[in-house]
Each structure stands twice: as structure tokens, then as C-alpha cells.
């Protein structure tokens, strides 16, 4: 692949994860910051290949984190409730097998199915992670599931 100007995501993540968590903790508190942290870097991961240069990466990821924090506030307000915890089984999120099961789905459908059914994220958060609308996320998840059903039926 020619012209890759951004650093490998691992280096980017290692360099900025502590700052991102610090910002999210200040805005949201320790508990909610953890979910928002995950969402911030999933969004960053999704958008990363479209970055054209490696300048201002810190500002870029902190902007994403800021938007995630605002979304989290907005979501928390209507019912005042916290977001549900990820379903956990033996201390591990219940994604076991999902990765393999969804292998071969179109990328967006796969991400939507995994985040919805593996991580139990609501559609507005999945939309945020995928850079689409909640309706599009819902559609991606359901067409992913239809495709999987079709596959297991055939």
C-alpha cells in the first residue's frame, strides 16, 4: 500500500489513550468514561484509513472524544439512566464465536451485528462508531442478520 502517512494505529493508540481517558473522566465520571473510551477509539479506527496526513492526531482524537462525551450526555438525559453494561460471561464480553460467525459479511454489516449482539450497544452508539445514522446502523445489523440466517439455511 503506497502513501501511508499515518502511523500504525497501535502507535497512535498507545500515544493518546491516556489523554483520551483523562478527558472522558473529567466530562463523564469514571464509570461512563470507560464505555466512551471504547467508542472513541472504535470511531477513530473506523475513520483512520481516510486520514490523509499525520498532523494534529492528538487534536483529532480529542475532538472525537469530545463528541462522544456530548452524545453520552444527551443519551443520559432523557431517562437519566446510565448505559447498560456490556453483557459479561466469565469475565469476558459475550462476543465469543460472533467474530467467526460474521466473518465474510460486508464490513459495515459485520461491525453493526457484532456491536449490537456481541457488545449490546444501542443503535445510536453503533451509528456513532460507524459514522452513520441510527437508522442506517439498524438496517445494517438487520440485513447482516438476514444474511447470516440465509447462510445457515442454505
Amino acid at each position, binding site marked *: 500500500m503506497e502513501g501511508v502517512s499515518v502511523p500504525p494505529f497501535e502507535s497512535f493508540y498507545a500515544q493518546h489513550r*491516556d489523554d483520551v481517558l483523562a478527558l472522558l473522566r473529567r466530562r463523564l465520571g469514571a464509570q461512563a468514561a470507560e464505555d466512551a473510551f471504547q467508542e472513541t477509539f472504535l470511531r477513530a479506527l473506523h475513520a483512520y484509513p481516510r486520514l490523509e496526513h499525520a498532523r494534529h492526531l492528538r487534536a483529532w482524537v480529542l475532538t472525537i472524544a469530545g463528541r462522544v462525551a456530548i452524545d453520552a450526555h444527551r443519551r443520559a438525559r432523557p431517562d437519566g439512566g446510565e448505559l447498560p453494561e456490556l453483557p459479561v460471561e466469565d469475565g469476558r464480553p459475550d462476543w465469543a464465536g460472533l467474530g467467526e460467525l460474521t466473518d465474510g459479511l460486508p464490513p459495515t454489516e459485520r461491525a453493526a451485528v457484532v456491536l449490537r449482539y456481541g457488545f449490546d450497544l444501542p443503535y445510536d452508539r453503533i451509528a456513532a462508531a460507524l459514522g452513520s445514522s441510527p437508522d442506517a446502523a439498524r438496517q445494517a445489523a438487520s440485513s447482516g442478520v438476514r444474511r447470516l440466517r440465509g447462510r445457515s439455511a442454505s
Partner: protein
Amino acid sequence: MTITTDLDRRFREAAAAAGLLDAGFDVVESPIGPLFVAVTPRGLLRIEFGGDGAEEHLELLARLAGPRVLRAPRAVDETKRELDQYFAGTRHAFDVTVDLRGVRPFAEQVLWELARVPYGETTTYGALAAKVGAPRAARAVGTVMNRNPIPIVLPCHRVVGANGSLTGYAGGLDVKERLLRLEGAII
């Protein structure tokens, strides 16, 4: 503010499970020392001897597969399981698919031929050259072995000199000897 190991692990798992990585890597332990293993959505891309210097491998992975390169144990699970079985002597052939992106056509042809050399047997550089229809290219075959991106799985340790000498190995001659002993190719 430092993130917890648990939060870090959860992000890496989510990233791999959501299929958002161009390449996932990890350093896995083995009887011949730590191995750097990298896997893409197409298959196993690299195995490097020694766990150190993982950093320097990342740039290469990004160039080959794309910039979304992340340490993600989940991504290399399948390869790790097969390697464990190989070193335990219970697996004689690997089932993981390989991703030979970045390999030149001649090298690719040689590596496919190499993949067919059976467990517990050895062949020579010249014999392999003949198999790809270039009987005088033993030296070029040697270079391909030297740059094998996926040693152990693509068994360049099974290729020896015409006089039976072990010649060379990226992981060190002692490792080559050890692998051949494990397979019962030498006593």
C-alpha cells in the same frame, strides 16, 4: 491518568471482533522462544522470530496491509492454537490460510511449492528450484527461503543443502535443527 489493563483488553477485543483491523498482531510464546505473529482478514501475514522489536514490524505491516494495525491477541488465536499443537507434536499440517501480499510472483511460486514439502521430510534448494521449473535457480530459492514471511507454517526449515548440511535459517541453525528433530526428520 493511565488506562487499566482490562479497559485496554476490552478495546482490543472489540476492535478485532468488529472486523475493523487491517492487521492484528501479538507475541506468542513457543518452545523456540517468542514469536511475533500478524494476521489480516485474508490470513496469516507474518511470523518473526523473537518478540523484541515488535515496534519495527508495525511499519511493515502498515505498508503491506493498511494502517489499522493493532496488538489484538484475539486476531491471532487460531494461528496460536495451531502452533501450540505443532510444537506439542499433535499437528503435522497447518490449516490457517496465508496472506502472501507483498511477495513477488517467483517467490510466491516457490513458497507454494515449499508448502507441499511433507512434515518430517527434507528437500534441497535445487530440488525446489526444479519443482518450479527453474532448475538452475537454487541460489534464488535460497534467497526466497531467507526472506520467508511465514516460517514454521511455510516450512523452510525442511530445505537443506545438496550435501545434507543445514545451511542457514532466519531463526538460527539451532532452531532449524530443533524443528527437524521435533518432526523426526533427523535423529
